């Protein structure tokens, strides 16, 4: 019955449903965009979250980490790989004339810091070198080729993945620590690799407590874990704000449904009067009209849901590079949520018109 009633004025039904469709698309798409952004942030930052970076503090006498400070660090930090480094920059050139600017990092424990795409990263780097693979292919270098730094030659033993880390891959040359000259202090920085973000944060806190106080920063301690947390929080808030805006459009659609239902029940006043006169109960009339409103919501929800998945495929392709992620729960839940909201809002909108129609005295309804 409810279905046939809706069919009587197809254009009106279609327009009301359209409002719901737009509302569902708005909510689902915005939610999925937020999920895609979060996915991307996790991917980019994820590989760095277990690192703690230590370098010379603002109030330190030296621009770097001294051997004494390194000893203290090694005493205080028990659950992480501690990798002191020296940094420089140089230009690598090949016989064919290609040249590229690279940063130079001197370490001993290369294995702890670097992922290789070819060759190996020794945990005691003494004579070999590592080069980022993009740089190597740009310069036409391969494993086994020599590179020159500071008038010495080093043989490439491994290629480092260029896109580990945040942002576009840098060009990096990794050498034994003694190949790089000391700066102001024995080491330019120290990187500590923890098990995960939580331990990284704990280690960072410990080092802060050990070396710094309110007006004296001896060592600058930073960990990406807290940065990622900040980014996550920001994205969450952003997501909620976007969803809030999207919900407004669904509220507007509900108002449209309320209007449609009111108009339709007023038009049918005589018919509803007949139903009541022949003995259809008030509750049955109420349910019939609520069913009409619910249908609008379900229809709009389904169409909106399907279209949202389409939008989601595009969003995930552009933002996260993997369109199938749209079917994962963190994103799919917004489609489900949008649908549920649509049906719920539609039924709610139908309540007042349904109640009004059901309680209309038949005598009055038949007269009018």
């Amino acid at each position, binding site marked *: 019955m409810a279905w046939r009633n809706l069919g009587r004025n197809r254009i009106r039904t279609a327009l009301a449903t359209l409002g719901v469709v737009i509302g569902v698309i708005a909510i689902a798409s915005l939610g999925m965009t937020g999920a895609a952004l979060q996915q991307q942030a996790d991917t980019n930052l994820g590989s760095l979250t277990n690192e703690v970076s230590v370098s010379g503090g603002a109030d330190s006498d030296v621009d770097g980490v001294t051997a004494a400070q390194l000893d203290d660090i090694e005493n205080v930090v028990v659950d992480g790989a501690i990798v002191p480094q020296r940094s420089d920059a140089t230009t690598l050139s090949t016989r064919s004339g290609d040249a590229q600017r690279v940063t130079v990092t001197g370490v001993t424990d290369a294995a702890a810091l670097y992922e290789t795409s070819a060759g190996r990263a020794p945990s005691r780097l003494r004579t070999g070198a590592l080069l980022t693979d993009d740089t190597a292919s740009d310069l036409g270098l391969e494993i086994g080729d020599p590179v020159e730094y500071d008038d010495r030659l080093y043989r490439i033993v491994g290629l480092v993945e260029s896109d580990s880390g945040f942002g576009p891959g840098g060009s990096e040359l990794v050498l034994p620590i003694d190949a790089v000259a000391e700066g102001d202090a024995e080491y330019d920085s120290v990187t500590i690799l923890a098990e995960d973000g939580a331990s990284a944060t704990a280690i960072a806190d410990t080092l802060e407590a050990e070396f710094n106080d309110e007006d004296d920063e001896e060592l600058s301690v930073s960990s990406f874990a807290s940065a990622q947390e900040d980014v996550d929080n920001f994205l969450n808030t952003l997501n909620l704000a976007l969803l809030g805006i999207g919900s407004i459009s669904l509220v507007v659609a509900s108002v449209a449904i309320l209007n449609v239902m009111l108009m339709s029940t007023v038009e049918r006043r005589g018919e509803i009067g007949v*139903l009541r006169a*022949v*003995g259809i109960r008030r509750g049955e009339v109420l349910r019939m009209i609520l069913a009409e409103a619910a249908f609008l919501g379900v229809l709009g929800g389904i169409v909106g849901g399907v279209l949202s998945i389409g939008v989601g495929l595009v969003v995930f392709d552009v933002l996260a590079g993997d369109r199938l992620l749209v079917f994962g729960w963190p994103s799919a839940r917004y489609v489900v949520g949008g649908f549920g909201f649509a049906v719920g809002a539609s039924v709610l909108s139908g309540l007042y018109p349904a109640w009004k129609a059901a309680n209309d005295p038949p005598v009055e309804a038949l007269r009018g």
Partner: protein
Amino acid sequence: MAPGVTVVQLTDVTKRYQSGEGTIEALSGVDFHADRGEMVTVIGPSGSGKSTMLNVIGLLDTPTEGTVQLKGTDVTAFTEDELTEERRSVIGFVFQDFHLLPMLTATENVELPSMWDTGVDRRDRAVDLLRRVGLGDRLEHTPDELSGGQRQRVAIARALINEPDIVLADEPTGNLDRDTGETILEELTALKTNEDVAIVAVTHDDQLVAYTDRVVELVDGEVSA
């Protein structure tokens, strides 16, 4: 009043309602009854309270004073839901404007009063009733495909779907031409015998008087003679 035979009994029924100019007394101390197998026609000038009386008999309106008894039970103080139940099972309505639902077929219109009853399928009875009123070849037609007389016959069939004890007809021939009106009246007469129902018709068409068993005249809300 003969128990088991009298379907509806109004005793000293008065109906007053508020209107712009004050209180109007549509019915004053009306006594009325209708028995099975008889057709009672209520006549009177417009404004005499005929429609109000039919509404009271049909449980669509409650009296300000007096009692209404349906099949021996006092229904005067029934709740809206209880009254709805009685309308569903005991009373059938035929309206001047037919009041069929435009998007349903003839058969569905006849089934309408029973459509919300779960576990009950009155389709066979609906088809049978339509055949009996001569519409066996119009079962799937919608109202806009039927003539006035045919629509009224569908309405009559609808009034009978739940096997009522009384059929109320408000100006049943009002929107029909003379010949069609005659057909309808013959229909109703056959009904009262075959279905053993009481029929109360309200009209100002003298045509009905020829078919009726008893005439009740209402003037200014009071029964005369």
